[in-house]
C-alpha cells in the first residue's frame, strides 16, 4: 500500500462523524481519527442526542454541529456533507460515532480515492477474505439488497448498509445537493453510480458496537425492506439531481 499520508498531505480533509446518543464512544472515535492523522478536521453531527454526546465531542476537540431535533441518519449525514462542501473540503471520510468503524482502517478506504481510481470508496464487511457473519435474517436482507443493488449498478456490491466511506470533492458535492432519507446507504450507492461517479468497495473489519444500540430495530425491519425496495425501484426512473460531468 502506498503511503496514504503522503498522498493526503496538502488536501483539505474532513472526517464526518454522525452520532446519536453515543457519549460512551464518540470521544475515542475522535481520538483515534486524530491519532491516525492529525490533519483531519473532525465534525461531529449530533442528531438530536439526549445524552452528553455534544459535550464529550467538544471536549475531545471536534467541531460539533447540533441538530435541533432528530433528523434521522440521512439528514444527519447530509448535514456533514453540506458542512464539507461549504467549507471547501476536497476529501471527506464518514465514520460512525458508535465506534464500529475502526479509524485504523482508514487507509484502506482512502487509498482508491486518493490515487484517483474512484470518487467514493466504501468499507465492506463482506468483500474479501475477512468476512463477517451476521444473524441469518439480517444476512438474508443484506444479501437481497446487495443482489438488487449489484444489478442496478452493474458492479458487485456486497455491503449496502455500510456507512464507512471516503469521497472526493465530486462525492461531497453530490451528497451535499441530494442525499436519501431514512435508511440512506442503499439508495446512496445507486445514486452515486447514476451520477457517473466511480465507486468501489474495499474489505474492512468492523468492531462490535462499543456502546449504544443499533438504529435499526427488529420491528422496523419489514418497513425498512419495503421502503428501500420502493425507493430503489423509483430511483431507476428518476432524473439526476445534479448535471453529471461527462467522463
Amino acid at each position, binding site marked *: 500500500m502506498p503511503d496514504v499520508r503522503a498522498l493526503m498531505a496538502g488536501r483539505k480533509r474532513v472526517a464526518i462523524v454522525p452520532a446519536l446518543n453515543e457519549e460512551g464512544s464518540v470521544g475515542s472515535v475522535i481520538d483515534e481519527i486524530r491519532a491516525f492523522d492529525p490533519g483531519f478536521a473532525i465534525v461531529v453531527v449530533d442528531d438530536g442526542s439526549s445524552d452528553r454526546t455534544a459535550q464529550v465531542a467538544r471536549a475531545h476537540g471536534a467541531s460539533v454541529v447540533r441538530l435541533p431535533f432528530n433528523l434521522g441518519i440521512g439528514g444527519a449525514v447530509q448535514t456533514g456533507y453540506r458542512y464539507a462542501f461549504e467549507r471547501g473540503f476536497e476529501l471527506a471520510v464518514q465514520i460512525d460515532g458508535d465506534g464500529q468503524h475502526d479509524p485504523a482502517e482508514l487507509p484502506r478506504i482512502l487509498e482508491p480515492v486518493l490515487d484517483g481510481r474512484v470518487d467514493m470508496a466504501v468499507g465492506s464487511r463482506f468483500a474479501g477474505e475477512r468476512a463477517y457473519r451476521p444473524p441469518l435474517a439480517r444476512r438474508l436482507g443484506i444479501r437481497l439488497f446487495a443482489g438488487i443493488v449489484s444489478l442496478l449498478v452493474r458492479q458487485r456490491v456486497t455491503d449496502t448498509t455500510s456507512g464507512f466511506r471516503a469521497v472526493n470533492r465530486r462525492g461531497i458535492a453530490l451528497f451535499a445537493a441530494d442525499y436519501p*432519507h431514512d435508511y440512506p446507504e442503499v439508495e446512496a450507492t445507486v445514486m452515486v453510480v447514476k451520477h457517473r461517479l466511480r465507486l468501489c468497495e474495499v474489505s474492512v473489519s468492523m468492531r462490535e458496537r462499543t456502546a449504544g444500540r443499533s438504529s435499526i430495530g427488529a420491528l422496523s425491519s419489514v418497513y425498512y425492506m419495503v*421502503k428501500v425496495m420502493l425507493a430503489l425501484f*423509483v430511483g431507476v426512473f428518476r432524473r439526476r439531481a445534479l448535471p453529471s460531468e461527462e467522463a
Partner: protein
Amino acid sequence: MTPFWVSIAAAAASLVLLLVVFELIRSRRLRERYALLWLLTGIVLLVLSLWRGGLNTMAGWIGIETYPPSVLFAVGLLFILVVLLHYSTVISKLSDQNTVLAQRLALLEHELEETRPDGEYNPDASPS
C-alpha cells in the same frame, strides 16, 4: 354479482391512483415514507376490483347481499381514514419541530445581536 363495468371502472381508478403516486415520488414531490399507505390503498382497491369472486365473498361475510361493490366504498373509506389519521400524527410532529426551530432561531438571533457591535446585526432591516 358485481356489474362488469363497475369492476372495470374501479380498476381503472385504482390504476390512475397508483400511477399518480408513482409520478409524485419520482418527481420528488412525495417521500417514500408517506407514499407507502397510498400505494397500499391503490393495490388493495385494484385487487378487489379485478378479483370479482373475492369481492362477492367479502360482501357475503359482512352481510352485503344487494350490491357487492359497496365493499369497495367501505374499504376505500377505511384507508382514507387511516391515511388522514397518519397525516394528523405527521402534522403534530411537524408543528412540534417547527416550535423548536423558531425558538432556536430566536435564541441565535438574540445571541448575534448581543455579540455584534451596535446595529451591525439587524435581521429586521433585511429587504426580504
